[in-house]
């Protein structure tokens, strides 16, 4: 199968929020980052994919199976903000608890991961630091040969060293051909380092879906002094900010002709894109 995840016209209405008929695909074999501001709909979408929340309408297909087929979870590794384990369990209890549910559980691999991540098999879950919890979650995920990882903010709350280690774990995971990672975050610097594809959601709508490089190569930042901004370029500017000493904004690279040579043009990062897009409520 080509796409690990296929979403078509998915809608879900909550009291104060609407996921409005979104559609996107996640190709298998790569890492796809899911970005958006808090409240944009990331967690909702992921819950819908797992059938933890129930959709109002639309189609969800994960690893070729319908979203509500529970056998799909054999091949799925899920890590939300924190893994869901009983606080008094230690890694050995956790293995005993989840092992019967997975046909492919590899006990040897599990213990190898525990050792690799320096996790004490006898330590209670509640006594672990956040980073350790995430690593434990990864150990569980990696021990049943999951083909797709769904991660919701896996690196938030981790210090830079831990984050780097987590990214390494993800990279190692992807060395096998048929594995995919879908991970939502608002720490765009992590995605800069590792993501192949980006899905960008804003206010319950998909605003971009495609290669990360294409997105960051499409735009650039432009800064100039007062008077350097041609009138006809105003409407092309995204997230324009004018101040006493000049202006600053984002624009498509193809539109950079026509500016005076004194302006400074720089490449964008995902963070720049997110910031500029939300500035005036713009859309791409």
């Amino acid at each position, binding site marked *: 199968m080509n796409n690990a995840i296929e979403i078509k016209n998915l809608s879900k209405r909550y009291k104060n929020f609407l996921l409005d008929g979104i559609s996107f695909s996640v190709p298998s074999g790569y890492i796809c980052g899911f970005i958006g501001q808090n409240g944009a709909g990331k967690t909702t979408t992921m819950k819908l994919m797992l059938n933890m929340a129930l959709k109002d309408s639309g189609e969800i297909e994960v690893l070729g199976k319908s979203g509500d087929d*529970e056998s799909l*979870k054999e091949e799925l590794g899920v890590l939300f903000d924190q893994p*869901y*384990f*009983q*606080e008094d369990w230690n890694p050995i*209890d956790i293995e005993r608890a989840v092992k019967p549910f997975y046909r492919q559980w590899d006990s040897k691999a599990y213990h190898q991961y525990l050792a690799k991540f320096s996790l004490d098999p006898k330590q209670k879950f509640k006594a672990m630091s956040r980073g350790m919890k995430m690593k434990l979650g990864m150990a569980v995920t990696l021990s049943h040969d999951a083909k797709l990882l769904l991660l919701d903010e896996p690196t938030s709350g981790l210090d830079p060293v831990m984050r780097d280690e987590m990214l390494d774990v993800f990279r190692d995971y992807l060395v096998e051909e048929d594995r995919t990672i879908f991970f939502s975050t608002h720490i765009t610097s992590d995605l800069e380092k590792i993501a192949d594809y980006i899905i960008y959601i804003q206010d319950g709508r998909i605003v971009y879906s495609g290669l990360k490089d294409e997105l960051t190569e499409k735009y650039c930042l432009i800064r100039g002094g007062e008077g350097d901004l041609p009138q006809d370029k105003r409407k092309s500017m995204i997230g324009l900010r004018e101040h006493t000493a000049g202006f600053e904004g984002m624009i498509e690279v193809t539109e950079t002709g026509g500016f005076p040579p004194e302006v400074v043009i720089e490449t964008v990062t995902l963070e720049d894109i997110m910031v500029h897009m939300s500035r005036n409520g713009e859309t791409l």
Partner: protein
Amino acid sequence: MIRKMIALDWRAMKVYQIRFPILPVFVFVFGWLYTPLLVIPLCVIFCLSFSINPFAVEEKGELNKLYLTLPVKRKEVVAGRFALSLILLFCGMVMGIAILPLVNLVALSKWYLSLEWYLTIMALSVLLYAVFNLFMFPVLFRLGYQKGKFWGFYLPIGFFGIMFGGFSGISMLPGNERLALNFLEYASKNLLFISGGMVALGAGLLVLSYAISVKVYSKRDF
């Protein structure tokens, strides 16, 4: 699969497991000091309360989400919990039956009744259990522990309180002094019939409770 769910729920209750042996001790003391009559029903009710623990721990550790990330159907989660509850019902019965003679030996107010009365008390316990279950489980499956506590726990207590109060009230009206005695007399003549009826009703209520629970849990958003 149900076996796996039971095991999972039981493991989730790790903290509470240690408290289980306290139940029989408590019931023993109660029976000793108060009345042996209620030993069996009490055991059963305590065991029912114990079977609510999975709901409590589930919410605390967000385990209900763990269940949804495992390859398990929602229906199976419900079935597992009911099965665990039934196992605990059985344990409660056995506990009660085992404690009763002991209590009778030392009790301050003894109780000598025939075997059929034993069966009736057990049947009554089953019915009691089923009624509580019907009140509690669907509500807890729908609302979770925090919100469900009120509707699923206080409400049935209130219901019983009202029923009991109502019955007492009616008994106190003129002409009704013998109501309770009449009832007991009728019952003693048709014990097996009454027992059978109570168990059948209890079974029916349990089935209803299960059906409602499956329905509400399947529709729940997390």
